[in-house]
């Protein structure tokens, strides 16, 4: 604290928190609304990836999807914690944290405690853990700015960082989510859309092998809706993988989807 010592006074953000006007757009009956950033329902935001964002790390990547900005660093394989038991296969350790200014209101990013374990589950199946026995690979993510679909961006970015670090994987892991808003499914939702969604579906897969590593569904979904959502996600995942592969291959990493 600069200036004065003692306890910090309580503060509040002056930005309006109630957005009554917005919810009207996503009305259940109205099918013809436009997404606030002008995208089609099944159109992802332009994706930007860059590897080697952090010099201090063994591998790292930066991802930017619209306003969602994420950095992932990979450290290791390095010595496991002393308390850990002997293990024939390597360990994966994941952590996701938010900057205090990531969210519109300061310091709300700590609500996402489950993201670390979800990142772990999404990546675990793709990494060939047998290649680094007795050691640990650390995957740390920092969400610089939260603009919606944070976890899918973190997962895709993490797999790119792992590839940059030279960790053996069966395939790149890509992840995309869809939000159910009334009758419609919108892909790659922004923060505003996520806050009004009736349900969400996040799919994480290895596109070249056509294998799913993680599928998370919240809210009420009918079976045909789930099928439709999964198909949209799988399709987007394979396109995303092409962008990521291009980033790994060449210096020209600015490809739009």
């Amino acid at each position, binding site marked *: 604290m600069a200036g004065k010592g003692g306890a910090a*006074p309580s*503060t509040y*953000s*002056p930005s309006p928190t109630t957005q009554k006007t917005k919810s009207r757009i996503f009305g259940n009956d109205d099918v013809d609304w436009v997404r606030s950033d002008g995208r089609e329902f099944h159109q992802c935001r332009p994706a930007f990836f860059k590897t080697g964002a*952090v*010099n*201090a790390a063994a591998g790292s990547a930066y991802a930017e999807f619209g306003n969602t900005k994420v950095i992932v660093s990979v450290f290791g394989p390095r010595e496991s914690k002393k308390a850990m038991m002997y293990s024939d296969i390597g360990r994966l350790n994941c*952590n996701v944290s938010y900057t*205090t200014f990531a969210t519109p209101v300061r310091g709300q990013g700590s609500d996402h405690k489950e993201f670390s374990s979800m990142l772990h589950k999404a990546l675990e199946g793709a990494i060939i853990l047998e290649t680094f026995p007795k050691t640990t690979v650390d995957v740390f993510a920092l969400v*610089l700015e939260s603009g919606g679909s944070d976890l899918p961006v973190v997962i895709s970015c993490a797999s790119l960082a792992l590839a940059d670090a030279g960790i053996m994987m069966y395939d790149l892991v890509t992840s995309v989510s869809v939000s159910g808003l009334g009758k419609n499914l919108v892909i790659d939702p922004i923060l505003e859309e996520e806050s009004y969604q009736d349900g969400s579906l996040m799919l994480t897969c290895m596109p070249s092998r056509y294998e799913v590593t993680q599928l998370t569904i919240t809210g009420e979904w009918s079976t045909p809706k789930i099928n439709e959502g999964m198909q949209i996600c799988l399709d987007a995942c394979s396109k995303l993988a092409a962008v990521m592969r291009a980033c790994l291959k060449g210096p020209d990493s600015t490809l739009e989807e």
Partner: protein
Amino acid sequence: MVLPDASGDVLSEMDVDAFRRLFPLRFFETHLVKSTRPDGRSLAEARETSSALGAVASADGSALVKIGSTRMLAAIKMEVMTPSKESPDEGCIAIDFHMPPICSPTVRPGRPAEAAPVVSKQLSDTISSCGMINLKELSLISRKAAWMAYLDIYCLDADGALFDAALLSAVAAFSHLQIPVVSMNDDGKVVVLSGDHGGKEPVNKGKRKLTLSSIPFSLTCLLHKNYILADPTAEEESVMETLVTVVLDSSGQLVSLYKPGGPVLAYTSAIQDCVALTRQRARELQTILDEVTSSMEVD
């Protein structure tokens, strides 16, 4: 860690990288006698420095600063508070420096880095003692409402001279800060005015920028024997441990001279050399800052 000369033959056959890891001090000293450093810089030369404003859209002011590989992201969020009784016409600044686990292999989640609270404290002290910001400008309505400026600085990549980069990013973020136009609503709360003002009178018309008087600039130097190395990298800091950080403001006043211990004693001549290097560096940083702020005004 100086080896006897007999092992010279072994060393000459050794791979450079292996030598650097095994005998880091000797590796650096062989460079120092030639007045150069492993990254090709001369001893008094700082690394390439750049800055970009407005990197964080969700903040009221933000800046990204790079010094070599060290990168800092600073962002300011303005919130409203009730000013304290002792100073009813003043706002407040809260500075926090974070070292997330992504920035360095030595930081693990759940165990905050030792250096982080120390740098936070140093930054708060420096910014308050150089008087860069007039806290009265952060007042909204006397005794009722004032701004609390939360400045959070994240180290994205740690490669030495963390304080220098953090201070530069803090200054750049303040120069980018756009205070939102607000008005008092019926509940006595301060709210941001949207485009059409809604019939309300803004309480802070024409006070959207802070005047920054006497901007602080810093340079960290490493003392080793009689050598003074400006702007050390993380590797240099870990091998040669004596650091001196000098902060000068734009009028040439000494804001801070910080030397926390270290095996090398600083004599008056070394102190004067460090101050002279900082003076030179302050001019460089001022130019960099002027360039980014003026390019922003054009937009």
